[in-house]
Structure formats: C-alpha cells, structure tokens
C-alpha cells in the first residue's frame, strides 16, 4: 500500500514537473530566439575560426560553399565544373540540400539564426526572399551587380521581382518556373487550340471547353488544377485573379470550376502530383501545372508528347522556381559573388539550362541553340507567350503568415464554408487593398 502511494506521488510529481517544463520553454522561447540573434551578431569570431579551418584546400583555391538540392540531372555538377574551369581562384563545395522545400527552409533558418557562415551561397524559393531579407540573413546584391555591369533587364522580370525586397535585390534567378496550361491537342479542335495557344480565352471559356471535351478520348474529367490548401493554391489563385487585381471575378470563376462536373470531385485536395498523374494517365483534357510535367511525358506515361500542347494562362503565369542569394555572414563574399554571377549570367545559365532542361533566368540565354535543344518547350509558341506574361506572388516581410491566411480564406470559400463577399473582403484586407 505504502509503495502504491509512493508511486502515485512520484508519478504526479513528475507530471507536475513536466507541466512546468512544458510551460517554461514556451515563455523562454522568444528569449532564446532573440539571444540567438544577438549571438549571431556577436559571434563572428568563432565563425571566422570555422572559415579558416575549412579553407586551405589542396590546390590552393578558396572553397565557396553552395547549398542547393540535387535534381538528379547533373546540372549542378556541370555548373561547378564550368565555374572551376573558368577561373583559378575558387573551388566549389556543394552541400546537397533536401528536395523537400519546407525542410530546406527550416535548415536554412536554423543556420542563419545561429549566425552561421557555413554556406556562402544559398538557393531559395522565390517567396522566401522577402522574409530572409527582412531578417537580415541575405546580402543585398545591387553594388556587386553594378560593378559587374549587370542590369535588371538582363534577368527574367517576374523572377527578379520576387527576389527584390524594399527596392534592393537579394536574389538572382537560378531558374524561373511558371504555371502553364497543358491540353490534349488530339482531343481539342484546331480552332480551340489556336485560341488557347494565342491566349485569346478567358477562364470562363476554359470551363466551357472542359465541359465540352470531357469524356472524349478516354478522359474522365475536363480540367484539373491545384486547389488543396497549401502554397500551390496561392499560385493558382494568383493566376485566376490576374495577380489579385480582379479578386471578385477571379475567385467566383475558380469556385465555378471547382463546382463544375468537369473537374475531379476531389479537386480540393489536388496538388501538383495528383494533377500531373491525372494528365499523364490520360484522365483529363486540360491541366494547369509547371513545366516539369513536360519531361514526364515519356515511355512510361499513357499520354505522349505528340498528343499534348501548351498554352498561356488567361490571368498570367505565376512565378515559382529558385533564386540564389548570398549569406550576409559569408566570410568569402568576393568568391561567393564570383560563383553567383557565373551561375546567373550567360555562361552558367547556358550550361545549367541545357544540362537540366530548365528555362534560363538570364534573358540572353533564351536564344542559345543548346538551351533551345534541351528544352523543347521553349520553341512552343504557347510556352513563349506564357513566359512573356509572368506574375509574382504578393510580397511581404512575413510571407508565410500572409500565405497561410490567404490559403485558409480562399479554401474555405472554395469548399463552400464561406461566401464570396466574405472571402473577397478578407483577401483584400490581407493584401492591404
């Protein structure tokens, strides 16, 4: 009996302590964060030590560390080779980042918060530039660009715009990505196909066409896009509302599409993967997605390349893709800029795009024959048209929060939990209109 009482006492005590343990850290968390930031400012000495420990490679070159995911197509390897052959001062140390975008952001933020100078160059998603620049993690690039003679007009417009925060450039495009409409040219009539490729159609026309062609050629649905509650919803809403200029009409069209029998019943949980699978397996006539789907039209897919064409989207094509930024705590900014400039200018972009089949972010590279050969999409009129009209997502110094709030509000409306007026006023308020 005594033992039982002792045991219960011990357990309850432990629980009480654990409860204290739970509440204490929540209070001290901000303190920990701020102390980490101040430590970041003060801790340049150990970081320097780290830098000297790392440098001193065998062939006398100073290493520049690049943090970028591996897309498995040899493009980064080719870039590194090209850079190391182009000069003899620096070598490249490539730290392979995860392909999971959220994980990369967590890893970067933890490292930046600690004031780490571990990575000289970091690849960031287009929407992170605002947050990271506002927090002081990234080095403004304008003075470097000026002395190297680079102009803003040299780079892809939408992509560069997303790397800009309070009138300074923090990231240059590694490659731009943007939404396009894939359609089955073996199903759609020539007349409609011309209309689509020329961009002479509205969202309403697209819904009508989807309903018309649905069921032909073995398809079970007409149109799919990304309507799950996640970042992709913002990209899609951005396109439907023409860069949030026409929120009212855009969202009501989007809702019309969701409710239409031409879209899959579970469209509200669709992300890129589901949309691509549906299109590749020949289940749908129209599909909004990123350029990567083109590469998946191969021997394994049911639908082949000669059955497919690409069209621009009515409201403009939302920009995605990746930028390269420089760590503000880098100990080797000269070397970092040398590599950054190489990657984002003509030579690097030609190598990177022609090896990996990307769209180059440096405009001059768009006409390079190797690049055109590697990326069949670039010779398609519909794709070129889409490239001309790219739109960035709303920028903010706390983009994550803004995006979350927008996603919730829009998804609620699309799933029928709130009405159009509520949603439109919420969205406008969030965007400060």
């Amino acid at each position, binding site marked *: 009996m005594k033992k039982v009482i002792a045991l219960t006492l011990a357990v309850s005590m*432990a629980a009480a*302590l654990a409860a204290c343990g739970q509440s204490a*850290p929540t209070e001290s968390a901000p303190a920990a964060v701020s102390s980490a930031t101040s430590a970041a400012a003060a801790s340049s000495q150990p970081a320097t030590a*780290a830098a000297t420990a790392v440098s001193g490679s065998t062939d006398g070159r100073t290493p520049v560390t690049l943090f970028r995911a591996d897309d498995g197509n040899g493009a980064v390897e080719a870039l590194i080779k090209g850079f190391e052959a182009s000069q003899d001062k620096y070598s490249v140390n490539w*730290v392979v980042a995860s392909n*999971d975008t959220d994980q990369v952001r967590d890893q970067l933020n933890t490292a930046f918060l600690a004031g780490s100078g*571990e990575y000289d160059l970091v690849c960031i998603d287009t929407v992170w530039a605002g947050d990271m620049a506002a927090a002081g993690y990234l080095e403004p690039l304008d003075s470097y660009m000026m002395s190297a003679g680079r102009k803003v007009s040299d780079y892809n417009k939408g992509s560069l715009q997303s790397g800009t925060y309070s009138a300074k450039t923090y990231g240059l495009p590694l490659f731009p990505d943007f939404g396009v409409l894939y359609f089955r040219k073996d199903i759609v009539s020539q007349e409609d196909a011309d209309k689509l490729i020329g961009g002479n159609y509205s969202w309403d026309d697209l819904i009508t066409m989807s309903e018309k062609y649905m069921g032909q050629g073995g398809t079970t649905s007409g149109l799919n896009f990304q309507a799950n509650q996640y970042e992709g919803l913002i990209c899609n809403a951005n396109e439907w509302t023409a860069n949030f200029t026409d929120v009212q009409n855009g969202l009501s069209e989007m809702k019309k599409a969701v409710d239409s029998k031409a879209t899959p019943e579970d469209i509200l949980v669709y992300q*890129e993967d589901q949309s691509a699978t549906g299109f590749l397996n020949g289940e749908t006539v129209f599909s909004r997605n990123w350029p990567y789907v083109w590469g998946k039209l191969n021997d*394994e*897919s049911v639908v082949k390349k000669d059955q497919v064409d690409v069209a621009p989207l009515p409201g403009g094509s939302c920009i995605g893709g990746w930028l390269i930024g420089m760590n503000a705590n880098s100990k080797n900014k000269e070397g970092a800029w040398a590599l950054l400039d190489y990657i984002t200018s003509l030579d690097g972009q030609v190598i990177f795009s022609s090896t990996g089949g990307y769209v180059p972010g440096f405009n001059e590279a768009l006409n390079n024959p190797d690049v055109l050969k590697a990326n069949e999409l670039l010779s398609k009129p519909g794709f070129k048209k889409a490239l001309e009209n790219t739109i960035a997502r709303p920028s903010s110094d706390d983009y994550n929060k803004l995006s979350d709030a927008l996603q919730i509000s829009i998804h609620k409306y699309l799933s029928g939990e709130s009405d159009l007026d509520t949603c439109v006023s919420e969205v406008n308020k969030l965007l400060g209109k």
Partner: protein
Amino acid sequence: MNKSKVFQTISWFFIIVFLAITVFPFFWILISSFKPESEIMGAGSYRIIAAAPTLENYITVIFKKGMVRAIGNSFVISALTTSYVIVVASMSAYIISRFRFYGKSILMGLILAVSMFPQMIVIGPTFNMFYNAHLLNSYWVCLAYSTITLPSAVWIMVTHFKQVPLALEESARIDGCSAWEVLWKIIFPIAVPGVFTTAIMAFIAAWNEYMLSCTLNIDEKIQSVPVRLSYLKDEFTIFWGQISAAAIVVVIPTLIIVLLFQKQIVSGIVNGAVKE
C-alpha cells in the same frame, strides 16, 4: 464449454481484423516497391502484382541514392548512442537506486521532465552549441540524441537495479569490492535483461530520430536513414516506388537484429513487467 468456444471465435475474429489492418500498409509498401512509377497511381494501382514488375526502384535506391551509406551511418550513430547511454544510465541508475540522498524523487522527476521538452524548442539552442563547437555534420550528434534517450533509460534501469537483492551487494562489499566494482561486476550482469530492454529502446529511438539529424547533420555523407528517405522526392513529385523500396531495404537490417535478439528482448520486457 460452449461459451468458451464462442469467446474463442470472437477473439480470433478480432485478431484477424486487427492483423489485417496493421499488416496491410506493410504489405502495400512491399508490392508498391516492385511497381513502376506509372502503376502506383491511376487505373492500374489496385493490382497486387504489377503488370510490368521492376527492380529498378531497388537499384536506384541502393546504388544511386546512397541508401547503403545512410544505413551504415544510422548503425554507427545508433550503436554509439546506445553504448554511451547504457554506460551513463547504469551509473546514474545505480546511484539513484542504492544511495540515500535528499531530493531523489525530485531528481527523478527532473530527469523525466527533460525528455518532455518539445524538440522544436530544444533544436535552436542545440544547433547553436554544435555550430560554435564545430560539431555539425559528425557522429557527435549522438550527444544530442541522449536528450531523448537518456531519461527513459535511467528510469527503466532504476527499476531493474532495485530488483537486485541487497544481500548480494552486501556480501560483495564484505569481500572487498568497491562501489565501482559492485556496479560492473555484480549488479550490471544480474540486471542484463533490463539493460537489454533499455539498449533496444535507445537503439530504436536513435534509429528513428529525424529532427535533430536533419538539422545537425545536413551533409549527405553523414545523413541518417530517416533524413535520406525524405530526400526521395523532388519539388513536385514524391517517388513512391523508391520510397517503398527504401523502406524495405531499411527494415531488413533491423529485422535481422530483432530476430537475433528475440529471446533477450522478450525476456527483458517481461522482466520489467512485474514489480516484486
């Protein structure tokens, strides 16, 4: 008699339903690992045996995605963590179970409380410490792992050490053993089943750990299995075939360990069950 038959049938029914539910995901992973990517989703996805079965997922995972090295890393890290935790936990458990001092139960509560901190809060400061001490991307991650494994290890071992009869220790003392010798020569060997349970639990916790590993060991060369698994996707696509193949490849070594030590694991778990 009739009643027990009915009871038996019902039990069997529940066991089968339960097994079907729990085993099904593993079964599905196994068959998915032999399917080409195009058959995992879409119309052909309900086939048990793929129309075009392939070993490509296994080949990719083992030879191109570095899963073998990740398994090796995970083994080294888990084994180091386990041995380190066992040594530290036996010493502290001995002190707690045998010596009298004030605040013993508070100490035990504190130890347990440490393991209840949400990891998201611990991770930032841990990264800073590792960064400033230049311990990132190394096997030193074991140190960080002890925050999740050590507390429960101490608790389990205290219970086991308390079961060892005091008389044994007293006679050892009379024969001239020091406290140190008593611990390693008398108590530790007797409490081996408990030690085994603790070791297995520490090993599994370290083997499955993701957060710390993904933050502290970013370099490809030192990544552990769970982190490596998360690399099997690109920006828009999840390679389910490869993930399934990797899951199977990763389970095999752990399965071998469990089969080899089955007896010890079961006896260890049962031994801790009854408090005498």
